[in-house]
């Protein structure tokens, strides 16, 4: 008999927590499915009288929204691949080869990660201008990969340490070099760690705003996070709220899919640094 109220309380708590987390996004979803006339009715309706997908269609027909999504996808994927390619050997070195000064490298990475993005943006902008790379995806891919190195390296170091050293000793016996051990023995065993890192780097790159705002002035070059902020109607007084709602949903959709499928991995990746450190 005593268990019932406790159960009830925890269901209520959970419901409250879910409502807090999901309500603002849910409201954009509802808005995106309403007609323009219904969006501007007072009081607002909490579910559309008539569902419409016009706003989603308008994003692709009247604006290059598909292009924005592609830009974001291309840049985030490029940054993720570059970041992993650089972080993996580095993390292996720090975890297993333990060079003198390895701790200093780790400390340097942590120190760099403490600065907000605004500290770096202007010198990077100078480089981009100097090299004539404005509007080019590479102008974001390389900085994004660099900014995510601390997270990627520290996470992978912890992951590599969980792999039994006996495997490498066997590899050394068989005459594999360090590179051979890394690519043939360690990497196949590290798929879970690499996947978690990749997801976190992809999400961070997709969401970056400051550099994307500054380095990609041309409309077709924009990423979705910047493009969405410049959605506007005829004047600032008539913002296309239906389209904005639809754009918010679409800009978040790839990330929501990642969250839905890899919830456990993401949480493990995020919490590891704070709890084991």
């Amino acid at each position, binding site marked *: 008999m005593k268990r019932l109220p406790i159960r009830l309380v*925890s269901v209520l*708590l*959970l419901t409250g*927590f*879910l409502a807090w*987390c*999901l309500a*603002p*996004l849910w*409201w954009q979803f509802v808005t995106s499915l309403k007609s323009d006339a219904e969006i501007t009715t*007072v*009081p*607002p309706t909490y579910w559309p009288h008539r569902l419409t997908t016009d706003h989603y269609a308008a994003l692709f027909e009247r604006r290059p929204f598909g292009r924005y999504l592609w830009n974001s996808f291309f840049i985030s994927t490029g940054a993720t691949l570059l970041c992993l390619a*650089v972080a993996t050997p*580095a993390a292996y070195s*720090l975890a297993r*080869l*333990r*060079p*003198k000064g*390895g701790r200093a490298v780790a400390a*340097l990475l*942590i120190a*760099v990660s*403490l*600065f907000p993005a*605004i*500290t*770096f943006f*202007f*010198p990077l902008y100078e480089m981009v201008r100097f090299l004539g790379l404005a509007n080019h995806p590479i102008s974001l891919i390389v900085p994004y990969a*660099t*900014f995510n*190195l601390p997270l990627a390296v520290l996470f992978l170091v912890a992951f590599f340490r969980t792999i039994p050293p006996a495997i490498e000793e066997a590899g050394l016996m068989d005459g594999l070099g*360090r*590179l051979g051990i*890394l690519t043939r023995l360690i990497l196949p065993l590290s798929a879970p760690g690499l996947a978690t890192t990749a997801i976190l780097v992809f*999400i961070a790159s*997709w*969401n970056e*705003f400051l550099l994307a705002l*500054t380095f990609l002035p041309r409309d077709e070059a924009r990423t*979705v*996070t910047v493009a*969405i*902020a410049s959605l506007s109607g005829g004047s600032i007084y008539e913002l296309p709220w239906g389209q*904005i709602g639809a*754009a*918010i949903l679409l*800009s*978040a959709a790839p*990330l929501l899919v*990642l*969250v839905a499928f890899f*919830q456990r991995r993401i949480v493990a990746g*995020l*919490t590891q*640094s*704070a*709890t084991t450190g």
Partner: protein
Amino acid sequence: MKSSRAAWWFLAPLLCLVAVFAIYPLVRMLVLSFTTQNLETQFAPVFAGAANYQRAWHDSHFWETVLRTLVFTVTAVGLELLLGLAAALALHHSFVGRGLARTAALVPWVLPSSALALGWIWIFNDQFGVLNDLLQRGGLLSSPVAWLGHPGSAFAAVILADVWKTTPFLTLLLLAGLQTIPTELYAASALDGASRWQQFRHITLPLLRPVIFVAVLFRTLQSFGIFDLVYVMTGGGPGGATETVALYTYRNFMRYLDFGYGAALLVISSGILALLTAALWLLVGRGRSLS
């Protein structure tokens, strides 16, 4: 010997990227802060000594944004910590749908801030906004409010948006921290007649301190440098009421094209961040190394 050389080869690409795209920008900012490079000098760098720092010292607008950003950071991170701790304790003891809660907690965290900022503008809209409607239905408000149109409420709205986005993240970190505390400690102290509050005060809080330190430090640094949410949600307005340090600095670079001065503001902000980090270290993190 051979192994050590391999170790550095493996680190070489990392060190190159970090040197060129992270260390060089930091050094460049420091150098730039001692020069004047703006429209007046036709963008040629002219050595200026400490002139930019002297100017910043007398720039009351800058110090207002610093104070505002500090108030924002302390309020937002404080609320996030309180709410996050409460939610983590509640979810820790509940067995229903923890996976569901974890997935939901990731939704605010994963959303792009700029997209989210637009979403909040719509929620806070004076005529058609859902917040006004809900508050009026609940009898808490007699007539609609233009939340983003007044300095105080706009500032509160930005804090709410930030708290919404980051509380679930803090909840997840604290939840993971709670799971590392051995349950025997609670059982033993219960035998000794400790109350729930005593257990929280003397077991949960001390053992959670390392997690709280990392989480609060991380959030403080992030919050002090906040840019995208404010840039899109209010643009710093109305009347500069929500302008943060990052916004003002960005404006000095990209609108006033005053690069030397902008750099000096960044160096000063970095100094303030270092002080904040030290303060947090003394308050919460003593006796624990960062890595």
